[in-house]
């Protein structure tokens, strides 16, 4: 058989040397823009007193597991010469919790750190889904709710302003809200899991099916369970959620007041159905959006129990932005004009 000849209109024979799935090379044009974006975000964080830290990409697997069981799950692992299991970190929050407990053990809070570093996650997704992420974020250790949340949210919005975004919004919810509602309504504990799983999968049809199978609740209570995830918007949604969730919503009302004082309340969407997948969140959870792109740019929340697992119990909250996604949103906003 004759070999196809390469020439005009014919691609050259493949000479590519592969890289692992989900990783990619960044070339100078893109790199320059990524640097500019992370540079402006870094300046915003540093001017607010957040010092940049760097930690090893590899950590002992059991250290990550102490932070969160799932953080040490399916991911890249290797062994050192002693046979210890090492893993590539899946976020910077757990390593910074370790740093605070070991390197700042005697220092009084508040402590403020920012980072620009890669994290790795295995995905079950299709071809080309990224597994290596450049994250830019901040952690605020010491202040409790709602002061900590207000500072983190204001800085997130300011950093994205500096990165060149104009239309970004931050969704704010409470990761414990739905669980507390289930407890307040005396829904038996063994029924919680399927409902919470539907919520986390964003399957509101499945949620309604499971709720209507809850025999021992009143129609009003079932209505509340189905409608809570639909409550999202400005401060008015906090007025509409009362009864058994009034306490949790009280915290979000206080946060709204602080955000209004800081002049950023109109950039925040209260979202009572918001859940984040990571298990260490204990209160408020955040997710960052821009209308120019269809995916979240990052997220975060309050994690008051995490530092205690490393020996220094302090309240904390933080945010992580995916720098590549911020760049995509910035380019898309630019294209829209």
């Amino acid at each position, binding site marked *: 058989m004759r070999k196809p000849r390469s020439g005009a209109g014919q691609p050259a024979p493949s000479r590519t040397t592969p890289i692992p799935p989900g990783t990619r090379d960044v070339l100078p044009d893109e790199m320059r823009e990524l640097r500019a974006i992370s540079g402006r975000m870094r300046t915003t964080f540093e001017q607010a007193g957040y010092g940049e830290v760097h930690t090893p990409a590899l950590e002992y697997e059991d250290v990550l597991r102490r932070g969160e069981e799932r953080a040490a799950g399916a991911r890249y692992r290797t062994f050192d010469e002693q046979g210890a299991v090492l893993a590539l970190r899946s976020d910077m929050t757990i390593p910074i919790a370790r740093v605070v407990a070991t390197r700042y053990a005697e220092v009084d809070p508040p402590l403020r750190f920012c980072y620009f570093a890669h994290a790795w996650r295995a995905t079950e997704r299709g071809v080309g889904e990224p597994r290596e992420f450049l994250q830019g974020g901040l952690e605020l250790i010491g202040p409790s709710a709602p002061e900590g949340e207000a500072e983190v949210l204001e800085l997130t919005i300011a950093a994205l302003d500096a990165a060149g975004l104009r239309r970004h919004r931050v969704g704010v919810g409470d990761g414990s809200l739905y669980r507390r509602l289930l407890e307040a309504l005396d829904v038996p504990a063994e029924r919680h899991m399927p409902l919470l799983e539907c919520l986390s999968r964003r399957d509101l*049809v499945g949620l309604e099916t499971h709720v209507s199978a809850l025999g021992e609740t009143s129609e009003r209570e079932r209505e509340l369970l189905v409608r809570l995830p639909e409550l999202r918007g400005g401060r008015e949604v906090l007025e509409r959620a009362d009864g058994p969730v009034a306490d949790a919503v009280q915290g979000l009302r206080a946060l709204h007041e602080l955000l209004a004082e800081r002049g950023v309340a109109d950039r925040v969407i209260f979202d009572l159905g918001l859940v984040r997948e990571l298990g260490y969140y204990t209160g408020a959870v955040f997710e960052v959006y821009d209308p120019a792109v269809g*995916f979240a740019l990052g997220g975060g929340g309050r994690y008051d129990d995490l530092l205690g697992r490393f020996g220094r119990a302090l309240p904390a909250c933080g945010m992580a932005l995916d720098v590549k996604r911020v760049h995509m949103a910035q380019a898309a906003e630019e294209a829209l004009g």
Partner: protein
Amino acid sequence: MSSGLTIAVPRGALFGGALDLLDALGIETGEVRSNDRRLLFEDAGIVTMRPSDVPTYVEHGSADIGITGKDVLLEQSHRNVYELLDLGFGRCRMVVAAAEGGDPIGSALRRLGRVRIATKYPRIADRHFSQTGRQAEIVEVKGSVELAPLTGLVDGIVDLTATGTTLAENGLRVVEEIEVSTARLIANPVAHKLKAEQIDAIVERVRAR
């Protein structure tokens, strides 16, 4: 009238039901009905595509909301989209079918320890057999699945059926039902937050129907 949203509408079996629903919501579909080949209808805010592409466009935000079958969502369960409503139409069943007479699936399991299954829905098929504790080898095909057991390629199939006529005409019978599927309204997770009013308006009107 447009809804202020971009809506992904499936061509194929769900097309008629989807357009009837949009008519009932006051969204102009005349142009879509009279234009078989055009895909994008900007004035009405409608894009048309095959049902299995709807979650892709909605997940990426190229469409804010979309209509697709539960079968598609089950097969693409990794898609990050909101499933907002069961629209009720387009009812069909995801089933396991095998040749009439005898028990080809049971006998393959008994004698060979595994069963060979042809399907266009490899994830649903794999999940169903592993959840029922049976070892299955899934053969993915693109065209008429009914052909596979007739030629001895496989012992049975997993496929969608509305009336069962095609199965019967090819000498196959339903041996297990996996799931009942209907059309669903789905939404992009960012649009669900940033275009909450427009999306809720549609959800309320569908619920009130």
